[in-house]
């Protein structure tokens, strides 16, 4: 019998220590604990590691603080392209999606590829057509479009138009 354990990350694009106010820090800690709680609930009931990582990632995807799904950043065309991957260490089963927008939780899209297709990685239109036939919740563009990410995109496009050097912080670049 192994000792269950779970680790999560919400990205390395953190605000600098001096630029993060206590309220923002608290919000991130709360969100991280919520993801740990979701995954730990599975593991503490003898659930699978695969299910635990799925629900932990879903919790982070649902939170617009992080750069995934509802908090995803925009590409240079002002569109959203999300990627996700999942892998089981038991049998090396794996699934991934790239360049998609629509599934509320891209990690579920990746898992659907793993469990219900003969492929490992599906991208773009082909992925979205496959996913439309799966039991996955879809959301409109408005669900994923957040004001904070629109502001970040416009600032970056303006910088490029001006020819100014790229001095973005990790937080600005990676969201």
């Amino acid at each position: 019998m192994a000792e269950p354990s779970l680790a999560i990350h919400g990205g390395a694009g953190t605000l600098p220590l001096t630029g993060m106010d206590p309220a923002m820090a608290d919000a991130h800690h709360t969100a991280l604990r919520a993801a740990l709680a979701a995954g730990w609930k599975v593991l503490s009931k003898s659930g699978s590691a695969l299910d635990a990582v799925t629900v932990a990632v879903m919790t982070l995807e649902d939170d617009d603080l992080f750069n995934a799904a509802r908090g995803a950043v925009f590409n240079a065309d002002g569109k959203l392209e999300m990627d996700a991957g999942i892998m089981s260490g038991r049998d090396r089963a794996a699934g991934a999606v790239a360049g998609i927008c629509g599934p509320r939780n891209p990690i579920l899209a990746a898992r659907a590829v793993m469990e219900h297709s003969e492929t490992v990685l599906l991208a773009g239109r082909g992925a979205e057509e496959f996913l439309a036939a799966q039991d996955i919740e879809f959301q409109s563009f408005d669900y994923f479009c957040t004001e904070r990410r629109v502001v970040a995109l416009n600032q970056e496009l303006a910088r490029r138009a001006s020819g100014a050097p790229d001095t973005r912080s990790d937080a600005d670049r990676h969201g």
Partner: protein
Amino acid sequence: TVGAVARDAAGNLAAGTSTGGFTAKRPGRVGDTPIIGAGTFADNATCAVSTTGTGEIFIRFTAASEISARIRYASQTLEQAASGVIAELFSNGGDGGLIAIGRAGPPSLPFNSSGMYRGFVLSDGVFRTAIHR
């Protein structure tokens, strides 16, 4: 980018990662997140890994499976392998971090950036979270 790695009571490992990329990226650009072996990897014999950072560098160095390989073939510990890969990526222009969990023991959460939103829980059920060093 967000991610999770886990070990269950049966000893099975798993990894998952999800991202939006980076702000104003070139349309069609895909980073390491969905690339199995680069941004996401799991093998019960060694470890499960989820990464975040400069995707192109993580892809070129197949960062996630490199950690597994160092455990399997160089007999490194999880911490040695994970920290070693992050240090090597940094010296090659890659910034970011990763979370990794092995067959036993605590997870490893190294990063070479100013911070990484992160957290873990062991069998004691205590949630530990951190942002900066």
